[in-house]
């Protein structure tokens, strides 16, 4: 009885070790992608596709799959945009919201709109009038990267700030 209990416990321990090591391996894989400086937990962190409205003012922010929540990096980008817009008060902007190709067309149109509005709301809290901002969703219609990989999709989940005038 005792022996079998010990045996059972050893088995459990072994199983736990296996699970842990499996997790460790998985983590390493994600880290490997992060090291390439391209993605962090599903959100694109690279600069391949980014253009600049002005020196140090990136034009776009990126989102996680199915999400419209702004990341720390996105908020930083939008604060830089807000500062630039305050200095250039004659410039109006269009926020173009996009989704990746892994969703139905109509839902993606709505999701692109929601992402662009997340950016709009943040710019407004930094003093940019809603009169200066319009929102345009392209859904999955205008990917910036035509690839079919998680990295390509992460570049496409974006809101891009474009000068309207």
């Amino acid at each position: 009885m005792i022996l079998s209990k010990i045996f059972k416990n050893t088995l459990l321990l072994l199983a736990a070790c296996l699970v842990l090591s499996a997790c460790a391996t998985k983590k390493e894989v994600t880290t490997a992608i992060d090291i390439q400086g391209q993605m962090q937990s599903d959100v694109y962190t690279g600069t391949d596709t980014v253009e600049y409205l002005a020196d140090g003012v990136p034009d776009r922010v990126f989102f996680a799959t199915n999400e419209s929540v702004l990341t720390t990096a996105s908020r930083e980008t939008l604060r830089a945009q807000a500062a630039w817009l305050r200095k250039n008060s004659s410039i109006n902007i269009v926020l173009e919201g996009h989704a990746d190709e892994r969703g139905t067309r109509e839902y993606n149109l709505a999701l692109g709109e929601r992402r662009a509005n997340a950016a709009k709301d943040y710019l407004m809290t930094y003093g940019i009038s809603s009169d200066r901002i319009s929102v345009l969703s392209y859904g999955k219609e205008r990917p910036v990267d035509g690839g079919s990989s998680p990295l390509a999709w992460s570049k496409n989940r974006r809101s891009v700030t474009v000068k309207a005038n």
Partner: protein
Amino acid sequence: MIKRLIIFCIILIPTNVFALIEVDITRGNMNPLPLAVSPLSIDENSRKSFEKILKKENIGSEISIIVENNLRSSGIFEPLSKDAFLQAPDIANLKPRFEDWNLIKAQALITGKVSYVSERLRVEFRLWDILAGREIMALAFTTVPSNWRRVGHIISDKIYERLTGEKGYFDTRIIYVAEEGPKTQRKKKLAIMDQDGANNKFLTLGNELVLTPRFNPTSQMVTYLSYFKNLPRVYLLDIETGTQEVVGDFPGMTFAPRFSPDGKKIIMSFAKDGKSDIYTMDLENRIVERITNHPSIDTSPSYSPNGKFIAFNSDRSGYQQIYIMKNDGSEIKRISFGNGIYGTPVWSPRGDLIAFTKLHNGKFYIGVMRTDGTGERLLTENYYQEAPSWSPNGRVLIFYRETKTNAKGEGFSAKLWSIDLTGYNERLVATPTDASDPSWSSLLGN
């Protein structure tokens, strides 16, 4: 241009006789019924007249090829090779030698005759039950010669209906989005074609992005999304006159339009401030009614055939699921509970099923479920596919499928496919260009 040309139809002989052949279309295409489509016979004078008018050497054979292709594409009939036919078309139409047709294992035979009568096309056809050794249907049509393809489709529908007991779907059209160019800069145009891919025609020039065209119940109007002047709005297009007008001119994006079953309203989504809700617009008095009001994304609405209910998808539970509600927006009830996310619900013309797109574990499925969410059946799995649309008899679904690209972003294509409700008979629907967002018309009628 839907030609509402009148086709005179005469029943040659009352045909309420009991037939031995019967096709069960609920069981899939495991044993398609072998039948023979004899070329329609034509006299030399008529042949020459039609050759002059239609530039077709033998219009009789051309019409029978349409019938043959339609029946084959249904997956429930197997048209036999003409090489094995022993009887000449004209003689077969008078009185088939049933033993001969039985010998090549045909269970049904279609014969007919085409003639040129006072500048019109007259087509007569007969359907024979080979095993019972008798005629079970005979009809004649008279119409303008340019209508010859439609005659082929109408004959196909009559045969389908006689042998299966259900309405056909061959005299129909597909409206879709024709696509060209690189994936990052696709050029899209509205296009319309016959169900078999003939008579393809582009309805817009491709200057602005257009998406999700859908027919009204009479198939003369189309509602769709256009990015004209970079303002994504719902539009209405009259196919016959080419007139376009904006109907969803709200202060924000309107999208995902569909007609109500009586054709009087358009139901659509309106997105503003990060939320999308469902609205209807009465086309006569332009009264707008709000149907849902929720901070989530509510979109892809589709009416039940009786107009009393609406299916839609919403992410109010956290991710995309299918819901149904009454047509006034009350009694919202979630019906999809399987693993994965669900979108694009489309109510079947019979009213008993909802077709949908499902994404689970990185794969896209087209499936159907009952209107209470039970009995989910996945018909096809692929890298990417969505947007099912029902054939008017509720037996076939058409949808579009996109291919995975390689690391360089090459190898992208978008094509239309159809599949039977049984999950059998998956077929590529050929289009001149890449294609997406198909919508099936109702039967055009005669």
